[in-house]
């Protein structure tokens, strides 16, 4: 019996590789297993190698596994590209159709199964994926009935016959593989899972759901990988709430339309990836100086320029903190799990209104697209706070003077009215302005308004600015990361601890303003600090050095080849520090 397993299905893009993984995962998720998926794909629709690697475990897992136990191959390339992850005892099940060849230098065993032939005999070659699921079932010693519910849901609307045929395909795959395996039947039997109901979703689903929970009722966006799922989800769900999504003509329109909507008084969102964020920068500055709330999601991918559109990277950090010309107050948050992505996105709308400034929810491709088991989301934890939005009748003044929308206050936040409110008329401009929004170049006014704006985020209240796992008062090593590296870091830490190294872990959730008070003590009590990030220049490490000092103590482990960190890479490189 094993308590975790790594399964991968691969083939040509457009062959249904995605749906094979999907059906497999949904069924196992319902049994109470924890799933963590990562899809390798290219910026094309048909053709090109794609694979979906899925971790199955009886305990919570947020990392891609180092190795591979079962590989389902629909073409030779899948074997050639992936067999190096396999070990003694690993199993390759490959479609007989392409006459699979086992590489010489692998200890994995190859089983050739006529996926396509069996499927064709049953009605259509499209069902070869189902045959593969059945074959997997045999290795896992699992009853094929665990798939019947999911198959019914997916194919039910096409009629009972289609449902039956797909179940027959699973059964045929199981039976064929059963005979092939002989005594090896159930070779990788998984321990029983806890049967708890959990969610199975990608980070972008959680971001979109978080936006709805956070009161977002309008979105303006332009399609881009890996952010589009957010707009696709909201266009399905917002109409029920009276809201909508506009797919704009470009990224600048998306940002400025969302700014207009927020100024207009609705909670509005825009989401994109690096190239889009580069285009939105001037608009972000406009939101900053006009003190217009706006939530912007950046799902990081490989940059610069078009870069690696379908690959993991975390290289937008500095651009998100400092991007836009001039200086504005801005909040940048970086959820490290899908659960946090939900709660943080909802909270982003509160912060945007409370501090009247742009809030960037930073994600990365692995977090945004990695489909995984997610703990139940608790809506009662979501609050709606609208800051100093005026909800009282504004008295008419003599001569109908303009409302002081930019009144200089102690905390820097001014009362905010939205257009349409009686006696609230004022002017908003990206030009430096006085308290009523009238353009002003006076040095005294400039300083007063600049100070007021920057003061707003000095004492920002954010629930958990740092995810901390700090078992040691004094540590040998403090590992720091952000976004999706959390899972791989956690597994590396288990191994480092087993090696006798005392490790504390800080995953930064509030990137800007930097939570120095939270992080500094951890740095002070660590012998060494290492920052793990998917970029080439150590951006988070530099932010850390800027804010907490201890420059000589801080080093980096970087990966920027487009792939996420694996636990063993972090483990090995951290060990080399000692």
């Amino acid at each position, binding site marked *: 019996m094993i308590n975790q397993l790594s399964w991968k299905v691969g083939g040509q893009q457009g062959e249904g590789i995605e749906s094979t993984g999907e059906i497999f995962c949904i069924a196992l998720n319902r049994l109470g297993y924890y799933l963590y998926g990562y899809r390798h794909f290219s910026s094309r629709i048909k053709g090109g190698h794609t694979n979906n690697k899925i971790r199955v475990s009886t305990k919570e897992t947020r990392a891609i596994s180092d190795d591979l136990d079962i590989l389902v191959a629909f073409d030779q390339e899948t074997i050639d590209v992936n067999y190096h992850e396999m070990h003694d005892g690993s199993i390759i099940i490959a479609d007989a159709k392409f006459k699979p060849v086992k590489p010489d230098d692998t200890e994995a065993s190859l089983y050739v199964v006529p996926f396509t032939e069996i499927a064709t005999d049953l009605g259509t070659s499209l069902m070869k994926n189902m045959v593969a699921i059945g074959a997997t079932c045999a290795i896992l010693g699992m009853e094929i009935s665990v798939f019947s519910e999911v198959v019914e849901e997916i194919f039910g609307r096409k009629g009972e016959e289609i449902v039956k045929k797909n179940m027959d395909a699973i059964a045929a795959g199981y039976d064929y593989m059963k005979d092939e395996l002989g005594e090896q039947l159930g070779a990788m039997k998984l321990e029983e899972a806890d049967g708890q109901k*959990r969610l199975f979703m990608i980070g972008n689903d959680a971001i979109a759901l978080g936006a709805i929970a956070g009161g977002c009722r309008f979105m303006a966006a332009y399609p881009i990988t890996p952010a589009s799922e957010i707009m696709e989800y909201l266009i399905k769900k917002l109409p029920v709430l009276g809201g909508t999504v506009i797919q704009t003509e470009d990224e600048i329109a998306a940002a400025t339309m969302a700014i207009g909507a927020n100024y207009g008084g609705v909670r509005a969102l825009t989401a994109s990836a690096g190239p889009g964020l580069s285009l939105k920068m001037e608009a972000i500055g406009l939101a900053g100086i006009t003190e217009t709330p706006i939530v912007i999601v950046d799902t990081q991918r490989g940059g610069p320029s078009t870069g690696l559109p379908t690959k993991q990277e975390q290289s937008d950090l500095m651009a998100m903190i400092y991007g836009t010309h001039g200086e504005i107050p801005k909040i940048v948050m970086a959820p490290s799990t899908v659960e946090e992505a939900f709660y943080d996105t909802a909270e982003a709308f509160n912060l945007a209104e409370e501090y009247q400034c742009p809030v960037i929810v930073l994600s990365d491709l692995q977090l945004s697209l990695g489909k995984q088991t997610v703990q139940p989301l608790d809506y009662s934890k979501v609050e709606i706070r609208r800051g100093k939005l005026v909800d009282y009748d504004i008295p008419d003044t003599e001569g109908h003077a303009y409302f002081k929308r930019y009144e200089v206050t102690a905390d820097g936040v001014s009362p905010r009215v939205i257009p349409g409110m009686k006696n609230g008329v004022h002017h908003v401009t990206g030009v430096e302005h006085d308290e009523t*929004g009238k353009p002003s170049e006076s040095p005294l006014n400039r300083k007063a308004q600049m100070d007021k704006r920057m003061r707003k985020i000095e004492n920002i209240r954010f629930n958990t600015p740092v995810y901390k796992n700090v078992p040691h008062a004094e540590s040998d090593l403090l590992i720091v990361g952000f976004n999706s590296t959390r899972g791989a870091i956690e597994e590396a830490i288990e191994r480092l601890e087993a090696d006798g190294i005392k490790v504390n872990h800080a995953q930064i959730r509030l990137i800007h303003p930097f939570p120095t008070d939270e992080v500094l003590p951890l740095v002070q009590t660590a012998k060494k600090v290492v920052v793990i990030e998917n970029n080439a220049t150590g951006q988070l490490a530099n932010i850390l050095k800027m804010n907490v000092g201890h420059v000589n103590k801080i080093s980096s482990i970087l990966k920027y080849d487009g792939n996420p960190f694996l636990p063993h890479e972090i483990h090995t490189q951290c060990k080399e520090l000692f």
Partner: protein
Amino acid sequence: MATFKDFRNNVKPNWCPGCGDFSVQAAIQRAAANVGLEPDNLAVISGIGCSGRISGYIKSYGFHGIHGRSLPIAQGVKMANRDLTVIASGGDGDGFAIGMGHTIHAIRRNIDITYIVMDNQIYGLTKGQTSPRSATGFKTKSTPEGSIEQAVSPMELALSAGATFVAQSFSTDLKDLTAIIEAGLNHKGFSFINVFSPCVTYNKINTYDWFKEHLTKLNTIEGYDSSNKELAMQTLMQHDSLVTGIIYQDTSRPSYQELVPGYAEEPLTKADLTLDQAHFDKLVAEFM
């Protein structure tokens, strides 16, 4: 009932004496009063440039944004609050150069706002460079030998982009301009009004006198029918677009807001920001 004086504030425009934009400002104030608006339920969203300052010179909610982006901002405001009357405005550089993409798409999207362009065929605030509206051969600081590009025809572009309201006016003709803006404000959908608004400082070619000499009023053309798109296009081409009046209006096509599935009849600003627990549970259940 507000009068046009209620739309005046005490800010002195920084336009040059004689600038065409003064009339546009006055016409907007008069049209707003004439259609029964109050300063509280009008938002003027403007771009950058001399004309972009207009949102600060009208007593109403005003948003002076970034160069070329008045339209997406204005559309966002309207989507947030469909009860608000929204005017977007700016110059020809704003709408036909840096913001041309938004202009075309705002036209075809047909959100119920009014877009007023103050077209002076020159870049004024940056002190006299060529504009996409400058005629071929037009000499400016950036085209010392004369522009070698073709000028855009915004009215023709608007027609081909599927506009439902296209009009043109001349800033000296306050009465006509006011009437056209009123018609634009009353139109259900995107209304696009181009106003010849001469720059007295940097454009010595397209002057008041030049326009008086070259413009033809559509209501003087016998048989002109603003519901006939083919005739509209033909007339524009015959007159090199130098016509004033309502060029084309399609009252049959619903505005964007009327077509959005599920879009609340109440302004989104009044939407409940919370969900029933049951609604949330239903959303979450789809991921199980």
